[in-house]
C-alpha cells in the first residue's frame, strides 16, 4: 500500500511537485496519468528513495522512504522507463544478480526465477545473453527482475512501451494475476486503452499537483466526457503530452 500526502519538491526555481496527494491500495491497479513534465517521474523517484522530498509525507507499507530508503526498496518492485540490461549476462544471471541485491539466497532465487519465467512466458530467453534481445524481450527481463523478490508494491513506468500486441497481452495478464495475489500496482502510463482495461483507479496529476483520484467510470461521470481521453484532457485543461 502506498500513500502520498501533500508532496512538494523543487529544483531551483522549478516546482516539480507542488502538493501531490494520492494513494494506491493493495490488490488494485492504480494508474498515474499526467502529461510530460507533470511530476510523475519525480514522484516515483521520491517513492524509491533516490530523491528527498521538501515537504509532505510518503508511506509504503508503513515505511517512509525518506528515512529508510533501503527498507522501502525491499518492498518495491521497480520498472523504470529506461530498460537498461547488461548485454553480456543471460536472463537467469540478471535475475540472480537482482535477487542477490534483495538479499535472497540461492534456493529462493532459483524458485522465484521459475515462477516469474512461468508468469511472463520467457522460457525461450532465460539462458540467452541480453545482447540482441528485442524491445519486448528486454521489457520482460526488466519486469521479471522487478518481480523476483515478490514485492508487495509494484512501480511501473510505461511498461507496455515498445511491446508488440502479444507481449502487451501477456503483460496485462501478468499484471492481473499479480493483482489477484494482492499486489499494490502503481502504473504510470500514457496509454488510455491500458487505463481502460486495467486500472481500478486513476490518479490525474498535472503541474506537480494531483487534480483527481477516482475509478475510471467516476472520472468519466464527473467530467461528463464519453471516453477517458476526453475526460483527461478536460481535467488538465489542454491536450499537451498525450501519446496514445
Amino acid at each position, binding site marked *: 500500500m502506498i500513500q502520498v500526502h501533500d508532496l512538494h519538491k523543487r529544483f531551483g526555481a522549478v516546482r516539480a511537485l507542488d502538493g501531490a496527494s494520492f494513494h494506491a491500495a493493495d490488490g488494485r491497479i492504480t494508474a498515474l496519468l499526467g502529461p510530460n513534465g507533470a511530476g510523475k517521474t519525480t514522484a516515483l523517484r521520491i517513492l*524509491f528513495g533516490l530523491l528527498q522530498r521538501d515537504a509532505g509525507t510518503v508511506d509504503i507499507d508503513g515505511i517512509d522512504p525518506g528515512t529508510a530508503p533501503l527498507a522501502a526498496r525491499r518492498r518495491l518492485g521497480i520498472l523504470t522507463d529506461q530498460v537498461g540490461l547488461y548485454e553480456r549476462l543471460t536472463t537467469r544471471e540478471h535475475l540472480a544478480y537482482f535477487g542477490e541485491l534483495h538479499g535472497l539466497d540461492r534456493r529462493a532465487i532459483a524458485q522465484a526465477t521459475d515462477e516469474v519465467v512461468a508468469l511472463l512466458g520467457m522460457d525461450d530467453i532465460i539462458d540467452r545473453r541480453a545482447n540482441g534481445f528485442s524491445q519486448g524481450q528486454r521489457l520482460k527481463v526488466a519486469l521479471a527482475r522487478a518481480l523476483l523478490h515478490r514485492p508487495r508494491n509494484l512501480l511501473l513506468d510505461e511498461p507496455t512501451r515498445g511491446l508488440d500486441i502479444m507481449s502487451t497481452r501477456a503483460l496485462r495478464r501478468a499484471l492481473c494475476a499479480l493483482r489477484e495475489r494482492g499486489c499494490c500496482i502503481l502504473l504510470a502510463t500514457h496509454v488510455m486503452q491500458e487505463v481502460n482495461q486495467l486500472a481500478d483507479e486513476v490518479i490525474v496529476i498535472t503541474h506537480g499537483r494531483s487534480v483527481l483520484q477516482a475509478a475510471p467510470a467516476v472520472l468519466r461521470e464527473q467530467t461528463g466526457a464519453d471516453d477517458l481521453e476526453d475526460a483527461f484532457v478536460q481535467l488538465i485543461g489542454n491536450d499537451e503530452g498525450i501519446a496514445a
Partner: protein
Amino acid sequence: MSNESHPILPGLVSILRKELRETLRDRRALWMVGLFVVLYPLLMGASLHKMIEREARAEREQNRVAVIGAGSVPNLVQQFEEAGIRVDAIDPLDDAGIAALLARREHTALIRVPEAFAPRFAALRPAPLELWQDSSVAQTAKLRRVETVLRGYGQDIAQARLLAHGVARGVAQPVQLQQYDTASRASRSGKLIAAIFGVFFVATFYFCMNLAIDSTAGERERRSLELLLAQPVPPAAVIGGKWLAAALLCVVGLGLELLFGHALLTALPLEEIGLSWRLALPTLLGVLATAIPLCLFAAAFEIALALNSRSFKEAQTAVGFALLLPLLPIVIVPMLELETAAWMYAVPVLAEQTLLLELARGHAVPISAFLSTAGVSLLAAAAALGVAIRRLRSERFVLGI
C-alpha cells in the same frame, strides 16, 4: 539522508562478482589486459636484447686499422698489436679511396703516414700523422681504443727522448691517471630493475581502466544505473563492489605482467652487459604486495573520475588525460636524478617506485617508508572513494542519470 543501518558486504560481493563476470566475457577488456601484460615486458626485453647483441658483436668483431706507410712506424704497429688491434698495411690511396675503404666498415680507422713523417721525426720536429675515420659509422668505443694507443705512442717517444737527454721518466708525466668504476654489479642492476618495475607500474592504471569505466560511465550510458541505485543496497556497496572488482583485475594483471617480465629477464643473458637479474619469487611477491595499495588507488581514482561522464567514450578521454598526473612522477623523477628523500614516499606512484629502487639497490629501507608508501596510496584511494560515494548520493547526480 538515511538513518537506517544496513550491511554493506552482501551487496558489495554480488556487485563485485557481477562486474568481474561481465568483464571476463568482454573480449575488448581482456585484450587490453593481455596487451598490457606483455607490452612493457616485451619492450623492455627487446631493448635489452638489442644491447646484449650490440655488446656481443663488438666483442666478436676485431678492431682493425688500416695503415698507409706502415714501414715508417714499426713501433706504432707493434703497440697496436699489443693492444689487440689488428693492423693491415695497405698501399697508398687517394682521399676517395680512403672514404670508400672506411665506408665498408671493416676498419675502425685509417692511419696515413705522410712522406714528411720520417725526415721530421729524425729532426726531432713534430711529425705529421693522419687519422681518418668515418663518423657516420658509430664505433665510438673502438675508435677510443685506437686513439688511446696513438696517444701512448706519442708519449713513449717523448719520454724516450727526454731520457736520452738525462731527464727522468716521471718529470714529463706529472700525473698518472688511474680510473676506477665503483658501480658494483648489484647497484647498476638495481637501477635497471627499479627502472623496469617503474615502467611495469605504468600498466597498473590500464589494467583496471576498462572495468572502472564500463561499470560507471558505461552503466550510465546503457541506462542501467538508475535501477541499480534503486535497489536496497547502500551507495557504499555499489561503489565498493565496482572498486574492488577493478582493483582485483589490476592486481591479477600486474601479477601476470611481473611474472612474464621476470621469466623474460631471467631468460636473457644479462651478464653479457654487466647486469644481473636475480630476484627470488618471494621478492617478486613482495613487489606485488607493495603495489596492491597502488592498485586500490588506481581503481578508486578512475571510478571517481569516470562516474562523472555520461558515456564510455567521454570517460575514456577524461581518464586518459587525468592519468598523466599520477604517471608524471614515473617519467620526470628519473630525469631529475634526485636523491632519495622522505617526501618521495608521500606521493602515490612515486613512493612505490622509490621504494623499489631502494630495495633493488640493496639499501636498507626504514619501516616508516613502507608504511608511508602503503598509507598514502590507501589514503588517496579512500579520498577518491569518498568522492564517488558522495556523488552517488547527490540529487544532482540522480537527476543526470
